């Protein structure tokens, strides 16, 4: 009996430890290939060169154009998702009748369940032609269309996390505000949102992290031309798109081109790792405050 219990516990622990091996595996793969890459390309060039052309004859390995593309699409996505997502959260929590709330929430969850390749199709076949009719001279592949659709994809994430944060604010605060004669709008933005601010910040950081790592929408709609620009109308390339571009082509294992996707992946991992840890840290602090 005792031994059986011990064996079962060990088995369960082993399953849990696989997650640690996953992390170690990710870091090991990225670092070992990355170090290989940096033995051939100087890290200074990688961080400062303004051209990324590993697949051309005249090779340059500056990550900046890919980082710029990634941040441009991310910025557009958050510019769409934060105002819309937060407004929906405030509306549902402070204004909407119960039945509307219980109708809208599952519908928004559908938006979150749609595979990203489908969003890419939507960007290319609906949003881009629409934007082209408004803004003549816009290229068929561009950061704006991909960014907007990515923003639409992130709305449910921001709404649902912000709403949870607003919901967790003690009712007494809202009632006190009403008792002082505030309107719903004043209560929402002067009492509830500040009280829930850490949860809302977490939702935005997770949204950014999601946008930085998003692959299929940008691979389909934003183009494959690494370019150091903030112009949202022209084709660009993100870090994730570059990895997809190399993976769909024929690149021999062990070649320098092959190693570039791990170097790009390493840069991507560092960004999301930092963002996720900031949000984890804020979340921990936030929990202490209310419990």
């Amino acid at each position: 009996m005792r031994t059986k219990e011990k064996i079962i516990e060990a088995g369960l622990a082993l399953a849990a430890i696989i997650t640690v091996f996953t992390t170690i595996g990710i870091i090991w793969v990225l670092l070992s290939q990355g170090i290989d890459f940096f033995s051939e390309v100087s890290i200074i060039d990688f961080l400062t060169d303004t051209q990324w052309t590993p697949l051309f004859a005249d090779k340059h390995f500056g990550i900046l154009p890919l980082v710029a593309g990634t941040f441009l699409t991310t910025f557009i996505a958050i510019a769409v998702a934060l105002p819309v997502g937060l407004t929906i959260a405030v509306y549902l929590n402070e204004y909407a009748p119960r039945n509307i709330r219980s109708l809208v929430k599952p519908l928004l969850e559908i938006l979150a369940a749609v595979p990203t390749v489908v969003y890419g199709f939507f960007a290319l076949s609906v949003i881009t032609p629409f934007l082209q009719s408004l803004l003549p001279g816009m290229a068929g592949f561009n950061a704006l269309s991909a960014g907007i659709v990515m923003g639409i994809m992130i709305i449910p994430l921001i709404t649902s996390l912000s709403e949870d944060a607003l919901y967790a604010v003690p009712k007494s605060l809202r009632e006190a505000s009403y008792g002082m004669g505030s309107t719903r709008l004043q209560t929402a933005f002067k009492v509830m949102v500040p009280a829930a601010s850490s949860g809302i910040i977490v939702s935005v950081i997770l949204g950014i992290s999601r946008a930085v790592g998003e692959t299929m929408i940008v691979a389909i709609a934003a183009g494959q031309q690494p370019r150091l620009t903030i112009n949202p109308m022209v084709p660009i390339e993100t870090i994730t798109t570059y990895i997809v571009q190399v993976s769909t082509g024929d690149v021999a294992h062990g070649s320098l081109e092959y190693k570039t996707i791990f170097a790009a992946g390493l840069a991507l991992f560092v960004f999301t790792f930092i963002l996720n840890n900031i949000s984890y840290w804020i979340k921990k602090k936030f929990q202490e405050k209310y419990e």
Partner: protein
Amino acid sequence: MNSSQKNRLKDNAFKYFGIGCTLFGLLMLAIFLGNILIEGIGRIDWGFITSFPSRNPGKAGILPALIGTLWIMGLTAIIAIPLGISAGIYLEEYGKKNRLANILEINISNLAGVPSIIYGLLGLEIFGRIMGMGGSLLAGASTLSLLILPIIIVSTREALKAVPTSIKEASFAMGASKWQTVWYQLLPASFGGIVTGVILALSRAIGETAPLIVIGALAYVPFVPSSPADEFSVLPIQIFNWIGRPQKGFAINAASAIIILLLVTFILNGFAMFLRNRWQRKVKW
């Protein structure tokens, strides 16, 4: 106008702005689904589902991709469900409060935020090259299993946490061992929540494209995979491939394949929601 009237006006204005934003989200969803249905529904017939990919968009079908998706779903379920639930049980019921549990918790929350394409790089090196699986179904399913493991673990923990302590204490008081308590009391009581999490995780797995592209899943597969060692394609990769082609016929094919993919995703999600509601209503502690 005095300031009280002004405030009331602002209050109402925001109410309509809120309704507007909510409608914007829902409208996008409607345009999105409507557009895909209009473009793609006419192309779906038995031939589309049972044909192989082709250079002629009118003759091309999704058979290998659809079977590939089913294979991936099955294999991922076999690998990820036992691992995820076991890990969830360990973290919630056994390894509480020790250092290891603390590390595991931070680690899992980090893994949940790692972009899926990074898992692809992991799978490419570890499963594809070092373990010699190449671009096989098994390599793809192993990669996706690691990707959805955090989701299953977190939802298993949530479901176990929702079981009242009184049940656990009663079981211990009857002389049951820890595992007997987990197996005969906690798991049955949290079954609904666990299954819901598992289904949502699987529906995430079948929509994933990027990691499978990276491990080397093929865009053109002229055969139906018949064993886990076979190379494969899945619906999202087939869709991605068709979207990338210039001919209009392939865009229509992409829309049709999207309808099939969304159908599978929504059925899984709907089933999960149904289970969650039923479970919430049935269980009253």
